[in-house]
């Protein structure tokens, strides 16, 4: 579909190398040559730190935890704090609860936003490492136009920068896809050269030819080769982004600031075969150091309204079978309210995973009455006092990769993945 010969992107002799403990650029080459799972990953990032006791890790009636108001309802085996002021939460679990795995007690082991974000997305404390979206995108969609598309802001492509794309703060990538949408068309002198299709093809072929010549001089090996491969592949594939332009009138710039337009674009990217992983970001104010309850409940209503829409559209578009949705926030909130009725940062968070291959309707992991992570059998995902393991961000990320059909060992050597939520 992309017109790219995967062989052109391979380093020589890579297939002869062992699959474990490889540098990342060799992993990429193997991914491009090997069988690829047709599994999409939609990462929903809730930035700022959600209060999990306001929904999926309810803790009412404790002196050790200040719970927001509400009632605990059971959806399958998932207890959720609900309330009449946020009906979308209950509606979501009523409709989709049996497809949803709730994972509580994920340890990020930091309480700083940037650090926690890095850890929950990459499973590491290293911002040079790729996040779950980048890994799954490359491993399952290396020959697509943009294997990993970032529609939100916060993501880590690590060494997979050449396989990642961005839409921009306001979705301004659309201004690059058609000259009539460009800034200069509206605000500038509009002296821009608009090549005909034939002229554009001449330009492209010339640029590619010169790049191939340069590759033969300085880009024959290793990372230099990767740079030139990225250049060549990017020129080849950029026109394939054209379906990002909506057929409708809704190509206005500020739409990407909202949640539902991001959802629509993500699904469009999957349907068009442009991307295999997409990260979207809920734009709410979740960092509730003051007036925690009112703000968190408001944001929960908005988030779950969007998640309901997401699931409905996945089903309607026939994408559910091939798509896994992972909802994460980089941290949770402290068990007790502070002097401003807010909650501060807490290093144990939760996640939700939805998909046809997810063992849904269950809670995996857990927290105790102090909101600390409890020992968990990572194979079953169930709390188990007889073990010493807890769910770490690395274990969670490894589990998601396993679910996506990606061997996590090269990325997280020695880390035991959380497997309990995966249908065998």
């Amino acid at each position, binding site marked *: 579909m992309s017109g790219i010969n995967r062989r052109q992107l391979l380093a020589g002799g890579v297939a002869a190398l062992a699959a474990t403990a490889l540098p990342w650029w060799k992993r990429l080459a193997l991914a491009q040559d090997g069988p690829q799972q047709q599994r999409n990953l939609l990462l929903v990032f809730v930035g700022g730190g959600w209060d999990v006791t306001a929904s999926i890790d309810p803790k009412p009636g404790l002196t050790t935890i200040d719970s927001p108001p509400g009632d605990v309802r059971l959806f399958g085996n998932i207890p959720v704090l609900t309330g009449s002021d946020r009906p979308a939460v209950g509606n979501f679990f009523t409709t989709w609860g049996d497809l949803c795995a709730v994972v509580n007690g994920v340890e990020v082991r930091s309480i700083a936003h940037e650090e926690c974000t890095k850890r929950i997305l990459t499973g590491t404390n290293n911002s040079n490492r790729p996040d779950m979206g980048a890994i799954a995108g490359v491993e399952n969609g290396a020959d697509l136009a943009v294997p990993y598309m970032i529609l939100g802001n916060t993501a880590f492509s690590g060494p997979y920068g050449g396989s990642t794309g961005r839409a921009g703060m306001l979705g301004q990538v659309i201004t690059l896809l058609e000259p009539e949408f460009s800034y200069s068309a509206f605000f500038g002198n509009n002296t821009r050269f608009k090549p005909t299709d034939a002229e554009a093809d001449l330009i492209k072929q010339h640029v590619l*030819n010169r790049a191939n010549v340069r590759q033969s001089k300085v880009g024959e090996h290793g990372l230099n080769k990767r740079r030139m491969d990225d250049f060549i592949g990017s020129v080849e594939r950029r026109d394939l982004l054209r379906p990002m332009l909506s057929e409708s009138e809704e190509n206005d710039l500020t739409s990407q600031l909202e949640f539902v337009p991001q959802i629509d674009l993500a699904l469009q990217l999957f349907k068009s075969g442009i991307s295999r992983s997409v990260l979207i970001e809920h734009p709410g104010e979740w960092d509730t150091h003051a007036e925690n309850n009112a703000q968190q409940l408001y944001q929960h209503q908005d988030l779950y309204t969007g998640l309901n829409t997401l699931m409905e559209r996945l089903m309607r578009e026939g994408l559910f079978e091939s798509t896994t949705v992972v909802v994460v926030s980089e941290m949770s909130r402290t068990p007790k309210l502070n002097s401003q009725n807010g909650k501060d940062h807490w290093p144990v968070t939760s996640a939700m995973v939805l998909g046809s291959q997810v063992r849904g309707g269950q809670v995996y992991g857990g927290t105790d009455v102090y909101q600390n992570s409890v020992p968990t059998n990572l194979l079953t995902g169930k709390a188990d006092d007889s073990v010493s393991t807890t769910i770490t961000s690395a274990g969670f990320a490894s589990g998601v990769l396993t679910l996506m059909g990606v061997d996590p060992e090269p990325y997280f050597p020695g880390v035991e993945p959380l497997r309990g939520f995966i249908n065998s």
Partner: protein
Amino acid sequence: MTTPDDGQGGDGQTETNNGTTQEQVQYLSPTDHLVRASMALRGVRPSVEELETVRANPDALPGVVDTYIESEAFGTTIRDMHNEGLELRTFVFWFPPVGELSDLSVMELNASVQESPLRLIEHVVMNDRPYSEILTADYTVANEVVATVWGMDYNGDGESWVETRWPDQGRVHAGVLSDSFLYMRHYTTPLNAQRRRANMVTKNFLCFDFLSIDINVDGNVDLSDPEAVKDAVKSPECASCHDSLDPLSALFWRHEFFIAPGEFTRYPVSFYQPDYERVYRPLFTDREPDYFGLPANDVRELGQHIVADGRFASCTVERFYGYLAQVEPEAIPSSEAQSLRDQFIDSNMNAKALAKAIVLSDAFRIAQVTTADGEERSFLQKARPRQWSRMMEDLVGFRWEVNLDLPLDFVGGGTYGRTDLMSDSFFGYEVLAGGSDDFTVTRMVHTLNPTISLVFDAFAQEAAGYVVERDFSGMSARPLLTVGNDTNEAAVRGELAQLHLKLFAEFVEPNSEEVDRSFDLFTAALGMSNDPVRAWKTVLTAMFQDSRLIYY
């Protein structure tokens, strides 16, 4: 040990035997080395004259580099380099054009206000002061806009950045450690007790990040009780960080915790609150201020301690090398780092000398290295978006600017204004082109992907259209194209050879194979449109997105 080439103008190919591995090193030619040094130091390409000088006499290269580190463009690079750590250029902390500054656009105002810590660093470096002065200077710098915002005295011409002082009585000066905008950007909360600011300082100037360490918080602690928190951070699990972090944090209490600049309705404003140290500090910490066990009472003493700390010099080398060579700290050759550190200290911390030493090193001018198993480091560098903008303006006279006459209510007033789309992460393409927005996107991308390629393609079309129309109209004093409507083969080939030299630093003859390819493109385009204007636009669109321009 690898050996350099003999400077005869060709690539150096050296085989070495490093015990178990056979390493081949290919070095850049002197002119390609000059291109890389120029881009790294200035963000612009060498002039044709400079290329010809070095081509004729490779020994002249260091002398040319000397002119680079004295240039205004190097000062801009110094600001860009330090901004990658300090992350100051973010829309989240835009100041509104109100009061006396209401005739400015948002872009114009913040191009000054957000730059002030970076301008101080630039001032120190470009005036050959010891680099340590960035943390010890008994002054600050401002232009008229910044002086108006903060209420400083100003005796310059309006545009110039001149030395001045913060207006507050008794305020300690310690280079950037005194800068109000630095603390506004790196805000804190009472319970955070200035720890965020302290970590920002250690991360940037000592290359030590407290946050890289895992933490385990005891859920038994009532974190809503400041007294309980004070006790908790002394527990064995927490003391390893907090015993040094908290006394350090105790030095930063003389500023507001957080203000959204959009709240300002007039200028001057102040972020300085010396009383907070007396009123709030005792509520949230009982640690006496110190610097890793050494007594310190204010940021002046803090700055003195930092510059005396051995880590400061090492961290400075890491920052300069990482930026100029576009590598991560762990990829810096350790022997190189040690040597540079020693030279830096011996030079009385002269930053220009450090930059020069880096770009003249053998490691910097490597084109390609292969080891026996095919693994290697990357040596191709990608032009950063802001570098690209400067480079193309210098090369062809085009800057991708638009005038966005859009009101920005969330800023608190004003219109957006004229903006360079390659240096703008909000409306523009800085992030899409691989740059950062200094808030949520903080990692640069030093390779190409399809969305980055889209940016360069669009830029090329814009620039080609502008340049050809301009040059064919005869309106430019410094045209890129001089051949006009003449489609005679010799004239076109001559023009193309000049373009290869100017844009790609390639010394090629008009009848060379390289020019053959460009001429084929011109001929094919001319054959399609029968219009030399469109033919040149086609050629320039291709050349302006060539890998030889994007990577160096």
